[in-house]
Structure formats: structure tokens, C-alpha cells
């Protein structure tokens, strides 16, 4: 997955979600349209299942370290030995407890992905809305810059930066965020372009509102539904990217426990001791499926609130 992005909701086969929420004339249909969307999304079974899965994995990542039976760096058994009374899921390639390292290894993936998502969506919203409102050379320049970043597969741009600067966590957040930005910007620009033509924007211009006020006070509240969908979608892709970088060995450095690097460290012994690979792979897979189910629910609710359904 990762980028491969087409226009978000379009990814999900839900083109309607890209349209802004507001009806003609009124600046915003409801005071907080995104709250309505989230409430409607919660009525859908897929959203609830998704939230339950995400909640479970987040709980493992957050509270796991508290219930771990050993230290994540303690050698407790023969390397690659199978499950025993001492080690519930056996020992990893160095003889450390797989279960303990699994319980300790989720938190970094979560916060790195969340930080990268927020950075990417904020950057993308700012660029997309400014481009949509500018309608001049600035729009062209921003979109050209977008095309350049879009031309790099996300993982390759991250690896290019890592090869120059080294495997730093801040660099992963920064580069994953930057590679999300043009993808978000395209969607936000498309959604905002329709809002820009509406009368209330012209009215705001006529009374001499500041440009920043118009962009973030008038445009932003009217593109919250594609924004919500983008947040969910980018989170799913962030988790995949951050975990993949860990799996390639450029994320959290040993001996710290991390789901991505656990796969990297134990892949060679997969036939002898599958648990040390299976546990982190299952957790990451479940987490991305969960976030995608929630995103799909939100996208469907966003269309529903628009009064149209397919």
C-alpha cells in the first residue's frame, strides 16, 4: 500500500466523499460538521469493528510494557527456542523473550506514525488550501513542487534521506510526513476549489477579510469531510511505512524492542521460530486493517451527511 495514492476517498471507491459538506449559500451546514460525520460513522458496523481492533492494539502497545514478564534486553533462553513455561512464545534470535519484546515494541510504531500523519496532513492542508485560493502562479508553483515529491515512491524518498543523514527517528517522521503532504494537498485543493467559487467567500473578500482568515476561517470548515478521510488514510499508510522502515533495519536501533525491527532480526529463523515474526506481523496487519475500516466508515458517513448515497 503506502502512497500509491489516487485521491483518497476515490481509493475507497467513494468519490462523493471528496466533495465539501456545505450546502449552497450557508457557510457551514452545521456548527461542527465533522462531529456529525463522526457520530454517523459510529453507527456503522465497520467503524465499530475497526475501532475495537485499533483499541486492542493500542492497549497492547501502551500497557504492554507494564505486564511484560521479563526485561526486553534480558537473555532468558536458548536462541530461537520454542514456547516454554519461562517464555510464552519462545525466545528470539538472541535468546530474549519474544512475548516481552512484543509487548514493549508497539509504542514507537504508534507515535512515529501518528506524528508523521499529523505533520503530513497539516502541511498538505496548508498547501492545498493556499493553492486553491491563490488561483494564480502560486497555485502552479505549489502543484509543480507537489509533482516532484509525488514522483518518488514514499519509501524511496525516506531511504534517500536516511542514506544521507542516518537512521534517526525524527528524520523518519519528517520524511514520511513530507511524502504524505502532496497527496493530501491534491485532495484538499480539489475540495476547496469548489468552495472558493461560493458566494460567502466572495462576500468575505468584499468586506475585506484578511486572506489568512478566508483560507482558514471560511475554506477550512467547509472541507472537513475529505480532511477526516485523509487523516485516517494517511495514518494507515504511515503505520505501513514506519513499520517497513523498521523491518528494513533503519528504524529503532537495537537493542530496543520494536515491531518492525523484530521482524528484521528474526526473519532468517522464520521456519524454526515463527512466533518472533508472526506476533509483530499480526499486530501491524490488524492495526492497519483497523484504521482502514474506521476510515472507510468515516468516508461513508461523509457521503451520507451530504444527502447523497450510492
Amino acid at each position: 500500500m503506502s502512497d500509491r495514492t489516487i485521491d483518497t476517498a476515490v481509493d475507497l471507491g467513494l468519490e462523493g466523499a471528496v466533495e465539501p459538506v456545505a450546502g449552497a449559500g450557508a457557510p457551514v451546514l452545521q456548527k461542527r460538521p465533522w462531529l456529525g460525520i463522526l457520530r454517523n460513522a459510529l453507527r456503522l458496523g465497520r467503524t465499530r469493528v475497526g475501532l475495537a481492533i485499533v483499541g486492542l492494539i493500542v492497549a497492547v502497545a501502551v500497557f504492554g510494557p507494564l505486564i511484560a514478564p521479563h526485561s526486553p534486553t534480558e537473555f532468558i533462553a536458548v536462541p530461537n527456542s520454542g514456547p516454554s513455561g519461562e517464555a510464552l512464545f519462545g525466545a528470539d534470535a538472541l535468546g530474549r523473550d519474544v512475548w516481552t519484546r512484543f509487548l514493549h515494541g508497539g509504542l514507537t510504531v504508534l507515535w512515529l506514525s501518528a506524528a508523521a500523519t499529523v505533520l503530513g496532513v497539516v502541511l498538505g492542508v496548508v498547501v492545498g488550501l493556499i493553492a486553491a485560493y491563490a488561483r494564480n502562479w502560486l497555485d502552479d508553483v505549489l502543484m509543480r513542487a507537489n509533482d516532484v515529491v509525488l514522483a518518488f515512491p514514499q519509501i524511496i524518498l525516506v531511504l534517500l534521506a536516511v542514506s544521507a543523514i542516518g537512521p534517526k527517528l525524527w528524520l523518519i517522521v519528517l520524511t514520511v510526513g513530507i511524502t504524505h503532504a502532496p497527496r493530501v494537498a491534491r485532495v484538499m485543493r480539489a475540495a476547496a476549489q469548489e468552495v472558493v467559487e461560493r458566494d460567502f467567500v466572495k462576500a468575505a473578500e468584499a468586506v475585506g477579510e484578511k486572506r489568512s482568515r478566508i483560507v482558514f476561517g471560511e475554506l477550512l470548515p467547509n472541507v472537513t469531510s475529505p480532511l477526516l478521510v485523509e487523516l485516517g488514510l494517511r495514518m494507515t499508510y504511515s503505520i505501513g511505512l514506519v513499520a517497513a522502515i523498521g523491518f528494513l533495519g533503519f528504524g529503532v536501533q537495537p537493542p530496543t524492542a520494536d515491531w518492525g525491527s523484530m521482524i528484521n532480526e528474526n526473519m532468517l529463523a522464520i521456519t524454526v521460530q515463527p512466533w518472533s515474526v508472526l506476533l509483530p506481523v499480526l499486530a501491524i496487519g490488524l492495526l492497519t486493517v483497523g484504521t482502514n475500516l474506521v476510515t472507510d466508515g468515516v468516508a461513508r458517513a461523509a457521503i451520507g451527511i451530504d444527502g447523497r448515497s450510492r
Partner: protein
Amino acid sequence: MRKLVVRRLALGVLTLWLISLVVFAAVLALPGDAATAILGREATPDRVAALRDQLNLDDSVVSQYLQWLGGVLTGSFGTSAATQEPVRDLLSARVGNSAFLVLVASLVAIPLSIGLGVWMAMKRDKPVDHVGSTTTLVLAALPEFVIGIGLVFIFATGVFNWFPAVSLLPPGEKAWQDPQVVVLPAATLVLAVTPYISRIMRGSMVEVLESEYVTMARLKGLSERTVIWRHAVPNAIVPAIQVAALQLAWMAGGVVVVESVFSYPGIGAALVDAVDNRDMPVVQTVTMLAAGVYVLLNLLADLATILVTPKLRTAAR
């Protein structure tokens, strides 16, 4: 139409040039002296001096860039900092292996996902459609290494021991001489891209099937097969072409992770080794290749769209 094509080509060249600036800038981002950063602190002064010379580090930045760009354009990508081999020799066999992998995956994925999308649209709201939509939603969410490792578990270890878990090739042998090593990596790529293409194809097809000309074709008494494949699919396929091109371009990055899962001897696995060794000439070459593939595929998709859309084909003739 010609004006449209020329404009699109010019845009592609401009994008490629901007990309080359970004890729080149990576060397400038190396902390401290680039040659020392690449070779590590234990490197002998001789080797550092040799690398400085090779990367033209003593020239101005502009001249360094022009020399590098000249090399890229003439197909000489410098010397690997890790093995002292020309990058070209190092990568040529691997480029073939990766291209073969992507080719096999796309030849399976594109017809499969188009067919799946058409089928789901025809059986709209029936069980087939629901199962298909849930499966694609789940598959679309899974990172490619999760899919790959899942396939290893099912088809290469405990459950069925059908394919090798590791795609090792004897030295000098090409992937197409030993097709077994391609099966699981290609299947991973297929499973990763199919959900996206089939979903967009389904959505577009549902819309077309509701249109008046499809009703008209049915009323004329044409067979269902003719209605679907002669009248509906050609009109529904445009968005799928665009998405398929994006998915193929995505594979240029997807191979990095997939090749690493299977130790498949392609450029993706080479990139990971090069990043590990800070082998900047190799990193830059693979990055340029991947970005170039993206620009080229996008260009082809736009040209294909112009060709299949009568309105664009006749516009600005």
C-alpha cells in the same frame, strides 16, 4: 491533440529535471565531509582522497551537479563507494530481475483486477460484491511486507511447502531462468495493487452500467456480453488506466520491501544494502530510476487517456 501531447512531454522533462536536483541534493545533506561520511572515520586518507576526486567534491556545487547529471544522461552512474565497481555493472543484472518481477506482477494484476471490478459491478450488492469489497478493503490496508510474510507462512513454511521462502539465485543466473523464485514476490505485488485497481474499476463500471446508452444497447437486443465488453468497459476503463499506472509506479517503491522480504536479487534489495553502506552513487541511481519510471508511466497513462477519450483526441487538433 498534438499541442496537448507536446505540453505533457515538456512537463515530464521539467519534472525529471527537478527530481534530479532533489536526488543530487542528498549528497550535500551528508554531515561534514561527504567522502569521510560515506567511507567512515577509519578510512585511509588515500581512499578519502580518491572518493573526493570521484565525486568531484573539490569543484563548485554547480559543477558537481552538472558532472553528475552528465553522467546520468549518458548512462554512466559513477563507481560504487562500497565495492569500487561501476554502478552500471553492479545494477544491470538486478534491473533485469526487478523489471521481470514487476512485469510478471502487472501482467497478472491488471487483467485480474479489471475483470474483478467488472464482475463486482455486474453483481452489485450481491454476495460476490460484498465479499469482494471487504476483501479488497482488508488487502488495501495491509503493508506489503505483511502480505509477503503472510505468503511465506502459508506457502513456504509450515502449511504448504510449495515455494522457496528465499529467492536465492546461483551467481550469474537471471530470474527468468528460474521462475519459481518469482512466484511469491510477484504474488505479493499482485495482492498489494489489485484492490486499488478493482475498486476503481467497479465504481466506474457501476456508473456506466446505469447510463442511458447501456440501457439503449440492451433495448436494441444486443447480447449481454456485447453490452458489457463492447459498450460499457471501454467507457469505464479510463479511471482504471490512471490508477493502474499509479499502481505500476508504486511497484517501483514496493519492490524495495518485497525484494527484502524474499532476498530477491533486484534493485530494491540493492538499494537497502546501499543505504546501509551509505553507498550514495548506488542510492542516487536507484532513486533516479524509480522516479523516472513514475514520470514515464504517468506520461503513458495520460497519453493513453487522450487516445481513448474522443473529446480529448479531437480537441485542439
